[in-house]
């Protein structure tokens, strides 16, 4: 990936005029993130085709963890939330937490877990 580092977005940008110092991802970071996302997706699809792993108890947690890592990576690096103002972080994470609680709450309310396990809630 030959590109001039002198023309990359700054790795450490000094915002002295704003009174703050920010890091910012470089182009090489963007490419590395893309490679990581592709590899995780490849692993997700690969384990889908391993019957013994699909039948194991580790299958669903593994997929959920890999999906969460991909989600967080895009949000932190591509959406720049890791480097951005804390208000933006709050505006995204607060509704996201509410959304997750809503999903889990609704699944319990409608007996999703008892439906899966056959146990009574």
């Amino acid at each position: 990936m030959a590109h001039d580092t002198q023309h990359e977005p700054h790795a450490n940008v000094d915002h002295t005029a704003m009174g703050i110092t920010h890091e910012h991802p470089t182009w090489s970071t963007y490419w590395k993130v893309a490679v990581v996302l592709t590899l995780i997706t490849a692993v997700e699809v690969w384990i889908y085709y391993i019957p013994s792993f699909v039948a194991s108890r580790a299958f669903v947690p593994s997929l959920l963890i890999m999906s969460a890592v991909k989600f967080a990576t895009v949000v932190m690096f591509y959406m720049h939330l890791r480097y951005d103002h804390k208000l933006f972080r709050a505006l995204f994470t607060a509704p996201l937490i509410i959304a997750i609680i809503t999903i889990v709450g609704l699944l319990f309310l409608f007996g999703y877990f008892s439906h899966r396990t056959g146990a009574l809630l």
Partner: protein
Amino acid sequence: MAHASALTGDHSHSAHDDAHGHPPTSTGLDNKKIAIWAFIGSECMLFASLISTYLIYKGRSVVGPYPHDACLPPQCSTPLKAILNIPITSASTFVLLMSSLAMVLALAAVELKDQPMPSGWWSRRLRSSKLWLWMTALLGITFLGFQAFEFTSFVHEGLTIRTNLFGSSFFTLTGFHGAHVTAGVLWLLTLLAIDYRRGLGPKDAINVDLAALYWHFVDVVWIAIFTLVYLIK
């Protein structure tokens, strides 16, 4: 400094705002950027409701076709195979992930437009906002093509939005996501039209950043859908 501040999207200093012609705000932050994050937050809850509806109805369809299992007589009058096509959806997922890469490269190219053009061929390509905006839009259209193919093949195999609970919740969830991708493609084409008419520069970086945030959000929603709907049996 101009492009550096645009890179972070942080407009927290009034002198900085004045230099870019932005009126000062009570938060010191760009109102448009606060609005897009608030919008994205509300979209999280919309998709949470659609995803939870899908999960609640999962495995409760009384007639086929089913997502991961074949439907055999007497449950179905004719044998129906599992309907989800994982290889095709994996390819479309890869396409959408690469569109996010193209989008960040488009934003970086716009932010650095007023910097001297580098000498290398690849470095010059990296600085072409038109190239990366086209790339993002075309990858988005390719994703929509995959989705159109998937929907059409499902209908041919006997699954419509009215067939069973799986069909209703699946088409609603993925259809909403597809509508969001379509809106994103239209937004990107609008930016391209502006780029061809007068050129996008660092002063437009905030507007490209808003489109980029929306586009990445559509991508992260698909990351969740791909796992929860397609991979988890």
